[in-house]
């Protein structure tokens, strides 16, 4: 048969296929021009009071969302087809890779992840254009103008210094493959969720710009902004939780947080967003903390951009650092200076005209939330300084690294203080309360804290450090007190967003308990064992059966078969040492055995003299609570989001019914 008539090899299909990269690039250019148009229309329309100009702003935002989605879909298609005429596919993919990693590999590199970033930004802008109903028209338009202004910078970055659709001629036979550490289902979930959260905060930033420009910083503004902040925060929480668990099982070091600069880069926006989430509630409920809330909205997205700068400039050593290109670093640094500087200047210029919000007493829910905000800000400052310090010293010729000892020592105690404030906050009334009354409500959690500390002292004295000790006590007390807002209430009539708060705060306690248990009670054993040996540790018996070679899709591995048992029947666990051919890399796949009270974590090392194999074994009591808590925190945020929105719809619906 004439090959031109055959389906996928036909000239027509090939013609279409060869256009995919150009389609994506054209969509990007179009989206960028629309962003410029949107910016000009919004501000010219607002300035001149011309409603016909403003009428075109929303369609422009929606079209941008569609175009960026087309560009992103084009890149995904190129990766799925392993189109080796595209440079990015060549340097980051391989035709023999499983399809999931071809798909997820789209954003496992610099250009692709930046395209994901602008796509999320475009789609978020479209969502603001389509679904935002609570804002006044002028503020809405100014917000969309702000969103266009930020997007424009990132379009420029992508098109001028990181074009994902660049061709390579002649096309090589195959690609160089994806870093095997990234070849994990985690890559399909962690970066997109995190980016949705990161970039979702750009909406809060644009809201703040819009509110400052139109001088509408009030409770209505806060109520309009809150769902966007909540949504971004939920996704950010999920992304961080997923990333933590991924690093935990993939890197084989047995740790769940490494204070890696890139982890810090995701933690900083989260800290700012958490503070924003609480202050926006104060503004929405009590019309207080106006300037502060606007400031936090600016800071939260600024932290997202700082994070992107740190990661994408390759300026810091990290497992996340891709290819280093100094021009890219300066480009992002320029954008950073422009946007953060611009927003702060606008803040300084306009904040004087924002009236002071409603006052509150010293003992009140508002004060507790101010304490929450201040402590979160302090932690944020400490993490930021610790992350940037190596850069600052390097400028003076000293090479320094700042790691866990610094962050644990100073962020740990403040985080514990924050948890204590979290126990008291929800039990304090808005506007005005009595210290004695609050103390009375905290009596039960305090008694429980006392009981826990006595039993811990009797049971584990000398085996447990001061921070894990306090962590466990506070976790239990906070866990109990986080349930207190439901005390003596009709559970079915309690609003959903109250449940959201309870679940999220309980999640913090659960997570803290997991962290404290992990650092206090983990048992580690390092041995070199022969097949047939029996290894005893932390109540577990591991029988090392054999080492066998196995083969996967694009890797081969040596696998240790081991029977693990704790008295009862035994379970087969299989830690592996995997070898990938392209690029040539060895990774270790830890074997994890999850039980209700913890995880057994086994890593296979290399062969040593006498036919022995290195094995590193951890028993980590209750470590899974860390991520369970993270999921609960995100779930709490989702409940609050749904609860608030549903109440809004119900009120609107009732108002409409009443009018009839």
């Amino acid at each position: 048969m004439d090959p031109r008539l055959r389906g996928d090899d036909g000239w027509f299909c090939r013609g279409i296929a060869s256009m995919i990269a150009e389609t994506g690039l054209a969509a990007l250019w179009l989206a960028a021009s629309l962003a410029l148009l949107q910016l000009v229309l919004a501000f010219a329309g607002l300035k001149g009071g011309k409603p016909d100009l403003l009428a075109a702003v929303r369609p422009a935002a929606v079209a941008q969302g569609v175009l960026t989605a087309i560009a992103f879909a084009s890149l995904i298609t190129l990766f799925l087809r392993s189109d080796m005429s595209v440079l990015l596919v060549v340097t980051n993919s391989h035709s023999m890779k499983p399809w999931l990693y071809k798909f997820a590999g789209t954003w496992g590199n610099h250009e692709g992840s930046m395209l994901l970033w602008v796509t999320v930004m475009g789609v978020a802008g479209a969502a603001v254009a389509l679904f935002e109903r609570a804002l006044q028209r002028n503020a809405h338009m100014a917000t969309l103008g702000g969103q266009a202004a930020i997007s424009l910078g990132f379009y420029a970055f992508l098109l001028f210094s990181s074009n994902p659709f660049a061709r390579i001629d002649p096309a090589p036979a195959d690609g160089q493959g994806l870093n095997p550490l990234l070849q994990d289902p985690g890559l399909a979930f962690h970066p997109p969720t995190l980016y949705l959260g990161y970039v979702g905060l750009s909406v809060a930033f644009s809201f703040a710009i819009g509110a400052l420009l139109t001088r509408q910083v009030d409770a209505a503004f806060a109520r309009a902004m809150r769902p966007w902040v909540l949504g971004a925060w939920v996704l950010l929480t999920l992304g961080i939780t997923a990333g933590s668990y991924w690093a935990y099982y993939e890197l084989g070091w047995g740790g769940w947080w490494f204070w890696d600069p890139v982890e810090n880069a995701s933690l900083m926006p989260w800290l700012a967003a958490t503070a924003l989430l609480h202050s926006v509630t104060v503004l929405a409920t009590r019309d207080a903390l106006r300037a502060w809330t606007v400031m936090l909205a600016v800071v939260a997205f600024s932290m997202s951009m700082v994070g992107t700068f740190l990661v994408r400039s390759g300026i810091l050593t990290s497992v996340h650092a891709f290819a280093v290109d100094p021009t890219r670093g300066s480009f992002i640094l320029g954008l950073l200076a422009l946007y953060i500087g611009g927003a702060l200047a606008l803040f300084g210029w306009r904040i004087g005209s924002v009236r002071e919000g409603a006052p509150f007493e010293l003992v009140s829910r508002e004060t507790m939330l101010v304490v929450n905000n201040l402590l979160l800000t302090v932690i944020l400052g400490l993490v930021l300084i610790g992350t940037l310090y190596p850069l600052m010293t390097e400028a003076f010729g000293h090479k320094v690294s700042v790691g866990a000892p610094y962050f644990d020592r100073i962020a740990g105690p403040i985080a514990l203080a924050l948890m204590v404030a979290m126990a008291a906050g929800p039990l304090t009334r808005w506007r005005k309360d009595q210290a004695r009354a609050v103390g009375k409500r905290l009596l039960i959690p305090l008694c429980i804290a006392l009981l826990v500390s006595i039993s811990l002292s009797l049971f584990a004295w000398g085996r447990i450090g001061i921070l894990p000790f306090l962590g466990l006590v506070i976790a239990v007390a906070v866990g109990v007190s986080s349930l207190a807002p439901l005390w003596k209430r009709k559970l079915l009539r309690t609003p959903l967003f109250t449940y959201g708060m309870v679940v999220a705060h309980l999640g913090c306690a659960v997570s803290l308990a997991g962290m404290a248990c992990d650092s206090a009670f983990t048992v580690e054993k390092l041995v070199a064992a022969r097949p047939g040996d029996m290894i005893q540790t932390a109540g577990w018996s591991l029988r090392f059966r054999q080492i066998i070679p196995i083969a996967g899709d694009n890797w081969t591995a040596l696998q240790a078969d081991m029977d693990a048992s704790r008295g009862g029947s035994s379970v087969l666990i299989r830690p592996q040492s995997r070898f990938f051919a392209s690029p040539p890399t060895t990774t270790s796949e830890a074997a994890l055995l999850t039980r209700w009270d913890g995880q057994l974590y086994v890593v296979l090392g290399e062969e040593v003299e006498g036919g022995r194999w290195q094995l590193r074994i951890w028993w980590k009591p209750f470590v899974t609570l860390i991520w369970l808590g993270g999921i609960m925190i995100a779930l709490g945020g989702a409940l609050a989001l749904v609860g608030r929105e549903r109440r809004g719809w119900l009120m609107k619906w009732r108002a409409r019914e009443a009018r009839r």
Partner: protein
Amino acid sequence: MKAKHQRLILALAALVALVGAGLLAASALKDEAAYFYAPNDVRTKGVEPGKAVRLGGMVVKNSLKRAADGVTIRFDVTDGKATVPATFSGIAPDLFKEGSGVVAEGSFDAKGTFVATNLLAKHDERYMPRELEGMNYNESTHEMKAER
């Protein structure tokens, strides 16, 4: 609280919190930041035992010895000008080998041996500990050249 002063008090509280954070960070960084030393820095400047530092250089050929327990290794780290003995217990990264670059985290013991708690080896062509940039090890002469 008087309504008039509330904003002022809040702004002051934020300022105090930020300044406090800065001071706290500065004091903690003085103790906890791990400085990077090349073997020659260790010889000329000296490092007090027990202080957390990073040691970086190349693993000297034929210096890697494994202890009888199978999980402890001893090796020498060089920058061409000086050599420092080091030990590590654990599973070394796959790319950790003689004649190749390494950054070790840990501290010196009283005898001047570096006790590493973590080894960061060169991952692949695209990833290299930044501290080792500009170091060039000649495998045949065991000499290091700084490319700067």
